[in-house]
């Protein structure tokens, strides 16, 4: 709670056509912490993420990243801000005409002046970190979904970003594979110390990784709380979200308290 | 290895197309790339009807150059024609330049009839003796009207 704010959304509003998706959304992300945005599908979680990335500009309000309002700045300023970003897209968005190696090397080739040998060293280190040593020469279509996610993570981390965004990092993966992604996330964050913003509906597992949880419901953020507070909150939206996603498992008073003790 | 192949393919493509361009520009565009140096002289005609830039210049039916430029002298309303002559060909001062047609409806060309002088024209000089194009319609009407 003490570290400085790196991302701040102030009264962000956004409509697509006549449909309002975000209505006065306020949210803060602090340096070095992990924020998880949860919410039912179709509520606009990804839209919030796209605002933070500058891919979508709000109809009203401010999106401050490192104290710069990226909702109202020039393209070159936005580009400058994005240099500290790493993104893992929901569908990974790997460049499918390039090999895994070239995918990871691309940010280095386009954004730095490193020699090809330095790039190779850097990329191979990232490949090893993600257990992808043998996949370097394969194309994205030739590897499994879990491997694609890992390649995406490697590409997002290759320039040592200070903020990393994850859009549904475990969608479409089985329990084993998603645990592996979480393990890699945990490991790399400990190593590189980046700030993370995760959009997910993998509740409750995701709570173990997060410092703060924010629920998007009814076009607004319903409290940005620690996981423990979140589960005990009496905000009706959070209450009903917690109950519908975790309710059947922790139905009785006894089980619920044992769960909190574990967390 | 893969990149190597791309480069060969691109190289082949470039060489092939530049060869084609060279053919077009040298052969068809009469681009004077390799030697064959020329000098220019000027000739004034009352009328050049139908003569075009690029038309041949012939002496005794042999091509010795081409028409480089044509423009109108605003003062006396004469056509000024720049003749580009091969360096090897010398033209006497008192030569006569005339505009002829190859056949009745053929292309116009400039024919130079030699004179008798020992002095030769230098670049930029003017051929003073000229014969304008023969107007075929005029000739025909003259022929018809003189009959009766």
């Amino acid at each position, binding site marked *: 709670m003490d570290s400085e704010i790196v991302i701040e959304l102030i009264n962000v509003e956004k409509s697509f056509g006549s449909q309002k998706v975000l209505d006065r959304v306020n949210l803060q992300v602090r340096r070095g912490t992990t924020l998880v945005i949860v919410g039912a599908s179709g509520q606009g979680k990804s839209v919030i993420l796209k605002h933070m990335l500058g891919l979508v500009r709000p109809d009203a309000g401010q999106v401050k990243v490192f104290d710069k309002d990226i909702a109202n700045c020039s393209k070159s300023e936005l580009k400058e801000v994005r240099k500290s970003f790493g993104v893992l897209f929901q569908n990974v968005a790997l460049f499918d005409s390039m090999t895994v190696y070239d995918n990871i090397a691309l940010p280095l080739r386009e*954004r730095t002046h490193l020699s090809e040998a330095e790039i190779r060293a850097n990329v191979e280190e990232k490949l090893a970190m993600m257990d992808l040593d043998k996949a370097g020469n394969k194309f994205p279509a030739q590897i499994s979904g879990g491997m694609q996610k890992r390649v995406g993570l490697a590409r997002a981390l290759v320039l040592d970003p200070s903020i990393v965004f994850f859009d549904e990092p475990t969608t479409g993966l089985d329990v084993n594979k998603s645990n592996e992604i979480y393990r890699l996330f945990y490991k790399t964050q400990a190593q590189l110390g980046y700030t993370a913003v995760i959009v997910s509906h993998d509740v409750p597992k995701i709570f173990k990784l997060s410092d703060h949880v924010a629920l998007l419901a009814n076009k607004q953020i319903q409290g940005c709380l620690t996981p423990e507070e979140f589960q005990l909150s009496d905000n009706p939206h959070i209450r009903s979200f917690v109950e519908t996603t975790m309710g059947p498992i922790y139905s009785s008073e006894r089980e619920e308290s044992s769960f909190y003790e574990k967390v | 290895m893969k990149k190597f192949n791309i480069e060969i393919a691109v190289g082949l493509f470039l060489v092939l197309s530049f060869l084609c361009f060279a053919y077009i520009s040298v052969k068809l565009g009469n681009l004077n790339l390799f030697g064959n140096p020329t000098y220019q002289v000027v000739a004034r005609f009352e009328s050049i009807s139908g003569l075009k830039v690029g038309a041949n210049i012939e002496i005794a039916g042999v091509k010795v150059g081409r028409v480089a430029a044509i423009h109108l002298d605003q003062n006396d309303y004469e056509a000024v024609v720049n003749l580009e002559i091969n360096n090897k060909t010398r033209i006497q001062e008192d030569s006569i330049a005339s505009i002829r047609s190859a056949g009745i409806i053929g292309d116009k060309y400039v024919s130079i009839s030699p004179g008798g002088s020992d002095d030769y024209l230098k670049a930029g000089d003017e051929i003073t003796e000229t014969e304008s194009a023969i107007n075929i319609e005029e000739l025909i009407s003259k022929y018809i009207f003189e009959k009766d």
Partner: protein
Amino acid sequence: MVILKSVMLKLLEKLGYESLYLLEVTGRMGIFLFSCLGRVLAPPYKLNPIIRQIHFIGSRSVFVILFTGTFTGMVLALQGYYTLRKFGSEGLLGSAVALSLLRELGPVLTALMVIGRAGSAITAEVGIMRNSEQIDALECMAIDPYKYLIAPKFVAGLIAMPLLTFIFDVVGIFGGWAVGVGLLDINQGTFFQSMYKAVAWQDINMGIIKALIFGLLMIWICSVKGYFLHLDRSGGFGAEGVSRTTTSAVVLSSVSILVWDYLISAIML
């Protein structure tokens, strides 16, 4: 009366909406063109992507161009021969073939072939990258998609199109020669002399200018269609969106090439 009024109002509204949409699309395409040309001129200059694009647009089209060029020249000679024979001027066949190729058919047919081969592929490639968020990914990596993705295509298009046109012209001329001299028994000297005499630099210039403009048009239309796939009113989503956009890019660029062909000819003749 009231019904008529409401119908008229609806019509006007529709008209206004359509023209606004058209203006918006035009503006978007214009801004796209200028941003791309700006990126072409801005450093850093990287040769490798341009070479790859020249390979794709140029080298890999050579075979098709050789084929179409030869047959175009052959049919020109055949048709020209029977037309010219009526006036007893078969001797002009060489110049007829060369002039039609250099001024009209060379640039136009080359452009149409390249649109079919490379233009459609560009739209599909860029469109799929847009659909699968690869362009967003580039932007989020602070890599300028115009500079990285589109600018090399413009450079390559502007280089490859005139060069392919030269190839087309030359093989066309020799195709015409094969039919004229080989088949129709025209004197070889007559064929080439009439050609050398008739062709002037301005004919060659016209061909080059046309090829350059066609190259620009093709890359512009085909890449802008793919790039703004997601903004397409008829819905640019999924495989069907890509295929529909590709079709419309091919049609639009072919039509505009024919329109511009007329305009350039009218201006330059």
